[in-house]
């Protein structure tokens, strides 16, 4: 008996790191899961590594595109017949910069990737969930959804924004058996952070990737980055029946970094 037997989930950015940990946690509790990612090859590798057979499916596409996010939800419903849990997890920055030097292109990319993707996915997911009066929407926000670091203006702004979206939506559907929450991890050394961290460190005036990791760690009480499994455990709680009365929350997984 799994905590998610009979449930169907989709996860943007689900082939690696945080989304992947969520996918594994959900599958181990009996859910069927569609993972999404840009790269077909990484998607196939993810399916092989997970070894969960028909319980997991891959949907290729860039989640900063509306057609992809909406397509993922349609694909999930057509593949597994329903959508119970929608994890809007992907996000990040490419070439971040202080506001004075921020390019329109980077700004637009971050808004599409971190904020619009969440809106598009949430709207479409709720359209499936409201008639069934059942559902869970989980947004992977960030510690930067409550704080703001120099050099990460777009990330901080969009992560703050999704927290507002989550709170408003939670109140809209609160009596319909649907919860909407965001999870706010501290820095985690995910693949995407390893890829873009060096450039971000420069934009933040920190010089190196190692210094970036150290600055985030030093602001926490645990003096280390967080781990994907820590986020997945919270996602599982919120996705399961045990989470039915938790909604509109900005759930911290940050080792004590945020002041509130």
């Amino acid at each position, binding site marked *: 008996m799994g905590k998610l037997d009979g449930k169907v989930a989709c996860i943007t950015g689900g082939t690696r790191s945080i989304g992947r940990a969520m996918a594994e946690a959900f599958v181990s509790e009996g859910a069927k899961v569609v993972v999404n990612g840009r790269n077909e090859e990484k998607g196939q590798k993810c399916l092989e590594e997970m070894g969960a057979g028909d319980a997991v499916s891959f949907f290729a596409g860039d989640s900063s595109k509306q057609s992809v996010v909406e397509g993922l939800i349609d694909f999930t419903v057509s593949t597994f017949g329903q959508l119970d849990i929608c994890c809007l997890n992907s996000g990040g920055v490419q070439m971040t910069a202080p506001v004075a030097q921020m390019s329109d292109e980077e700004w637009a990319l971050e808004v599409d990737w971190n904020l619009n993707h969440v809106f598009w996915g949430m709207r479409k997911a709720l359209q499936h969930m409201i008639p069934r009066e059942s559902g869970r929407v989980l947004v992977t926000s960030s510690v930067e959804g409550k704080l703001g670091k120099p050099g990460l203006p777009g990330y901080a702004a969009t992560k703050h924004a999704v927290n507002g979206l989550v*709170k408003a939506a939670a109140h809209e559907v609160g009596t319909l058996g649907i919860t909407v929450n965001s999870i706010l991890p501290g820095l985690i050394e995910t693949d995407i952070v390893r890829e873009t961290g060096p450039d971000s460190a420069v934009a933040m005036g920190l010089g190196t990737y190692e210094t970036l990791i150290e600055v985030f760690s030093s602001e926490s*009480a645990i003096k280390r980055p967080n*781990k994907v499994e820590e986020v997945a*455990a919270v996602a599982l709680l919120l996705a399961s029946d045990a989470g*039915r009365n*938790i*909604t509109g*929350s900005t759930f911290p997984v940050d080792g004590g970094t945020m002041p*509130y």
Partner: protein
Amino acid sequence: MGELDGRVACVTGGTRGIGRAIAEALLREGASVVINGRSEEKGTVALEEMDAGEKAHFISADVKSREGCEAIVSGTVEKYGKIDILVANAGGASNHAPVAELTDEAMEDSLVWNFWHTFWTMRSALGHMIPQGWGRIIAVSSVEGKVGKPGLAIYVSAKHAINGLVKSSAHEVGTLGITVNAVCPGLIETDIVKEVLPLAAESMGLESYEAALDLFAQESAIKRLNEVEDVAEVCLLLTSEAGAGITGSLISIDGGTAPY
């Protein structure tokens, strides 16, 4: 195999209500659990109902005294050899009144019951947890630890104070394998609430106990009260290994009531 096999937990105010649900959840995951309460008789009944044999133990003590609080922690160590998990759960408030009419005694009683009890048990438990390099402390705070209602100043003040204590101590022991968190439930219709809320309703200017229940429910997104199991499940998450990355947090379990 339980997540908490070999762990020893202590729950103040554990014979009924939220504490009892937490105790049962911890037992289910393999921990040995000490429950505390004032009444020897209620303790005996609780142990019988929980039916956990040697895995559960009752310590009769009044959390409104330092001696009582210290006896609960030292009694846990005496019984099971150590203390890994402290849930400072007891609390409540009587003799509510608007601030202009509050007595010193009412304020003092609430601070001792809620805040000093949390401090006394936390200090005592940390004395054991720091040398062993592992520990989980959970303070059962309240949605009223984040917001404030007219007529409930004694309770609101005490719960806000607990949240401050949690944040400071989390940073003190963050690198020692010890986490300190507060859970902030919305209103739950526990035995203690049935006892004290009628008077609180009067102090809040409401016509009845039912009106007070309704007021709390209406402020949430789910438009109903929370349940003891909601809190117990979050406590399991916080006490698990995956909970190692969550500390200094004030976790809302309130159906979307608190704004942050």
